[in-house]
């Protein structure tokens, strides 16, 4: 399976859905700052990885997948919820990358220029996340090819 860009998917996103994401993202960012101010950076830092936008995003994924299937004359609810599960699985892989992002930022921030530390952390997140996704895909590919091939006696 190849990774694809489907720009037409943006057309399915309605203006109020974009506003909702800006609202959730903005509130999460402000709330994280306020938590850090009230309880200190140790507790505040935890909330830098709070899945504030995930419930809204997952609900939108379900809605879009359901609408797509309905246009094709199907109910599509089960399929839409499977799509959400797949998206959550991807987020689980990405969260390992997020832990590495935080680790790199923690170690590099006091040692060099901020931009370099943030860039290295961002690059680490992307590399680790994509690598985990790719490794899982390869393992799954091998497993399914083993199960298809006839057993040699």
């Amino acid at each position, binding site marked *: 399976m190849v*990774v694809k*860009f489907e*720009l037409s998917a*943006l057309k399915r*996103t309605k203006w109020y859905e974009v506003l909702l*994401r*800006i609202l*959730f*993202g*903005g*509130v999460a*960012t*402000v709330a*994280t*700052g306020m938590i*850090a101010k009230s309880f200190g*950076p*140790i*507790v505040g*830092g*935890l*909330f*830098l*990885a*709070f*899945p*504030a*936008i*995930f*419930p809204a995003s*997952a*609900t939108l*994924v379900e809605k879009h997948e359901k609408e797509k299937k309905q246009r094709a004359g199907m109910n599509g*609810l089960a399929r839409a*919820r*499977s799509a*959400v*599960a*797949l*998206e*959550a*699985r*991807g*987020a*689980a892989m*990405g*969260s390992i*990358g*997020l832990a590495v*992002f*935080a680790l790199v*930022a*923690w170690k590099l*921030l*006091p040692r060099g220029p*901020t931009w370099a530390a943030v860039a290295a*952390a*961002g690059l680490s997140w992307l590399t680790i*996340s994509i690598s985990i*996704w790719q490794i899982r895909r390869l393992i799954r590919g091998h497993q399914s090819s083993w199960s298809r091939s006839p057993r040699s006696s």
Partner: protein
Amino acid sequence: MEGLKEILFRFLVGGLVVSIFSALGDVLKPKSFAGLFGAAPSVALATLSLTIASNGIAYAAVEARSMVGGAVALLAYTFLVTWVMFRYTPSTLLVAAGLLSTWLATALGIWFFLLK
């Protein structure tokens, strides 16, 4: 007034960064790959520079250290959402919002046993 300006600035930057990562998740296929962007460091990217500007590098580094714990909690949360959605296919909003308590419990557990 200065405080209100900072809140508004954080709101706009946070909203914009989160929306960009969400849009990336929308256009990417397959779904499991798009999901990687559901765990993007969007809030961290939006706030780290602002935190350094107002509180200094040492403060931001402490936040980053705690964020490792938050990311572990995110792994627990997303793993559980995946399992429940595949196993029972219930309402997405109910599961995704209801299980946020898992994130909170895991994060507070990490804070209590490892970071406090």
